[in-house]
């Protein structure tokens, strides 16, 4: 091939680079390794992480069983090694599955349009806020209100986008009894400059929010309601947030291993009038030249590769493979299964929740906040039994230093939940001594 090019050596291929630019020595990296050595290295790193045994952590990343079918499907090279489906004629597999995904997202959320996925739930929130601002062009509405019951790291992400993207972000509080967003505080803070109120349900404490009322308050002031979810399994049982205008959520629960928090997949869904404000990819139905049903990416006039600086977002790809995992997961569980799965989660959480002193009395799904004097010590005690306990909340909520967020899923066994309850009650006994 070098002969074809009339070159003597490979280095001639970059002879045009200025001499000062060319790297003089070799890269300071270890020599290349064989497949066996690579597997060995990662096995050793894996052994340094606790990954087996029961865990009661949730807080945005959940431990659900992954049906074997999911990996069987996404390991197929035709899905794994394909690009964004710009060439519709040879991408119907991906496009069809995206169309199914969008449909199921609408069925679950009660929205009318859903995009092909986002990076994750946390970055979907600022994108939803920007959408709400665009939905009211020229109205000067550049302020969003987010409940303190929303995931703390989602709120931090929103603040970063807000700082640089001119979104004024303000938080509203929560009711110390119910653990629900304080809608009186929301009402007080809503004004003519507010583009959206953002409420997560189930919220970070696991508690179901009153979305109807939040929507009514927001709409009353001409603002939109953005509904957020981090636990997609809850949608198997909970009424969808139909009153919201935009839904932003995280799909990790649908067949994604926790994977130290990434990759995940987010989603934005909305009511019809806001469809052209959506960021990200959309698949649509059409026909091919023979009149057969076909799918393609559509409404690209919103997107950066067409609109450049006038695009709705800079987002380029979505999380197609993960959206596909979620699609397979939803197909496997289906209508009855997702409900039964949600019911198991509810039942497990209420079994353990019933044994512990809970901080809040609002209705909860598969997470709840327990009162524990020394949450870190309880976790250490559990760790000796090979159990990963809950998330001490003081880190995110200084007023909740004596509280721990616990999550139960269908994978939580009764014996382990009993062990947690025992460890907690011992902690309580010590505290009262």
């Amino acid at each position, binding site marked *: 091939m070098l002969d074809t*090019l009339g070159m003597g050596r*490979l280095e001639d*291929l970059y002879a045009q680079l200025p001499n000062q*630019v*060319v790297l003089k020595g070799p*890269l300071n*990296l270890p020599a290349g390794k064989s497949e066996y050595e*690579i597997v060995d290295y990662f096995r050793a790193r894996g052994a*340094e*992480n*606790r990954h087996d045994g029961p*865990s009661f952590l949730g807080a945005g*990343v959940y*431990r659900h069983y992954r049906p074997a*079918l999911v990996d069987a499907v996404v*390991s197929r090279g*035709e*899905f794994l090694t*394909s*690009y964004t489906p710009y060439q519709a004629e*040879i991408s*119907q597999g*991906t496009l*069809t599955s995206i169309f*199914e995904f*969008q449909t199921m997202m609408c*069925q679950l959320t009660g929205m009318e*349009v859903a995009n092909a996925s986002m990076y*994750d739930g*946390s970055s979907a929130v600022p994108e939803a806020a920007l959408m709400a601002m665009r939905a009211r062009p020229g109205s000067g509405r550049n302020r969003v209100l987010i409940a303190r019951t929303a995931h703390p*790291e989602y709120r931090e992400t929103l603040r*970063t986008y807000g*700082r640089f*993207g001119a979104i004024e972000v303000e938080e509203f509080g929560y009711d110390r009894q119910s653990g629900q967003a304080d809608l009186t505080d929301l009402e007080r803070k809503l004004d003519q400059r507010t583009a959206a109120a953002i409420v997560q349900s189930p919220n970070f404490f696991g508690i179901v929010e009153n979305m109807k009322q939040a929507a009514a308050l927001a709409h009353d002031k001409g603002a939109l309601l953005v509904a957020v979810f981090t636990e997609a399994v809850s949608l198997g*049982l*909970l009424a*969808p947030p139909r009153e919201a205008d935009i839904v932003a959520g995280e799909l990790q629960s649908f067949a994604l291993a*926790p994977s130290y928090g*990434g*990759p995940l997949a987010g989603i934005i869904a909305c009511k019809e009038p806001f469809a052209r404000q959506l960021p990200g990819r959309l698949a649509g*139905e059409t026909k091919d*030249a023979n009149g057969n049903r076909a799918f393609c990416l*559509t409404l690209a*006039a919103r997107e950066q590769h067409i609109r450049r600086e006038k*695009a709705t977002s*800079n987002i*380029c*790809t979505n*999380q197609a493979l993960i959206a596909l995992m979620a699609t397979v997961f*939803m197909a496997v569980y*289906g209508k*009855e*299964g*997702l409900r039964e*799965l949600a019911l*198991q989660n*509810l039942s497990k959480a209420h*079994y353990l929740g019933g044994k512990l002193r809970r901080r809040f009395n609002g*209705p909860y799904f598969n997470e709840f906040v327990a009162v524990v004097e020394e949450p870190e010590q309880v976790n250490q005690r559990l760790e000796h039994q090979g159990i990963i306990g809950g*998330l001490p909340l003081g880190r995110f909520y200084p007023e909740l230093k004596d509280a721990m967020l616990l999550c139960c899923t269908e994978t939580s066994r009764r014996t382990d939940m009993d062990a947690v309850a025992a460890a907690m009650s011992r902690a309580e006994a010590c505290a009262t001594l």
Partner: protein
Amino acid sequence: MIQKVRPHPSQNEPLLFELSSPGKRGYQLPELDVPAADPAVELGGENVRSEIEDFPEVSEVEAIRHFTRLSSWNYGIDLGLYPLGSCTMKYNPRVNEAVARLDGLSWIHPYQSEDLSQGAMEIVAALERALAEITGMDAVTVQPAAGAHGELAGIFLVRAFLESRGNARKRVLVPDSAHGTNPATVRMAGYEVANAASNERGMVDIEALKQMVDEDVAAMMITNPNTLGVFEEEILEIGRILHAKGALLYMDGANMNALAGIARPGDFGVDAMHLNLHKTFSTPHGGGGPGAGPVAVKRFLEPFLPLPRLKRSDAGWRWDYERPQSIGRVRAFYGNFGVLVRALAYIMAHGGDGLKRATLDALLNANYIRKRLEPHYEIAYPTPTMHECVFSDRRQAAHGVGTGAIAKRLIDYGFHPYTVSFPLIVRGALMIEPTETESKRELDLFADAMIAIAQEAEENPELVRTAPHSTRTAKVDEAGAARRPVLKWRRTT
């Protein structure tokens, strides 16, 4: 002659919703070992849905057949050359998939204690070190979820740095050949976009640039090699012009696969850049994500990197949140960890020499394609080619055959098309990036196909214009889809 493919039957398949029948199920849950909760009691009747209307109901066999049939309608790297310019569709080694799925790496929770996550944190640290070495930069964050997300974090931190100096400035310069994400990112970071023109060699016009750079310019976002596959030979001068006015040089690292092992952005004046792990470092594109977009910076920008940062302590790795100048979080948790694992595995397999060799092979393959196609297609710029080459459809357009039609005809020959009509500064662009993982045999099949199509364009333009002819789905009506959007399935009764 079409050598790579011949027709074979492919199965029809309805949508999941059309396949459904009531009561079918593909799952099994264990029996509850606790009392069943009553949703209406625990959640309140108004909070409980009666059903998920029209949600699918299929058996396990139906589900696997459904998705397997769908997969057979896709093209992938595993099926052949995928010459999408700028997208770097190289082979995705399967060992990377295997290690990312190890229980010890996939079943770890982001909030389990740092003491129980040391292996994961070491992987992140090892990847940060390797990427710093490859780019010649001082510090790396692996948090951003994708290239565009990395750009956003990168321009956020440019802004945070300039704000700390008392003036955020107004504009970011973006070459007219840039990816669309660049100007879109600039807007999201609150800057105006100013387009920098290219010269007749396909490089940034230095004289025009000098006129544009003043104290209102925050930075220039440059892709190097640029989207024409051309190395910006004046890159040192570009850096000097910007730095003289206090502006920063940001590099879009989409084309880092043309440089790894032969040149380092940190050595040619770049202050901040992002990488696309799904391009240069071969993590699978997966039909459009997940990717990862690490950001690498010079020392003076390190305090502004997103939260949290890894910190070494006596007790091992810790996450550091006490960083007052940081731009803050750009997402929850620590990045697309599963993608980072794959990228580190790729780097380990290659080592320093292997990465250089991969770069040279990518250059060789692109130049070979250029050499073979140059007699038949008009090269956009005569400048030397790095990892991709861009042609114009000018010669074929004279027969009424544009780049879009040539791309569709390529499908009949068994190949995925190149990138169509990009970069925008080339009339009817054909942007071809073969990557290093293609053999001469596959490259020759591709070149033969392209040459045959050039001939068809002259002799039988209608054949090319109406392509593809052999796909199970004929030409798709995209205009119709946009005119009357149908974005979800609806029950028709």
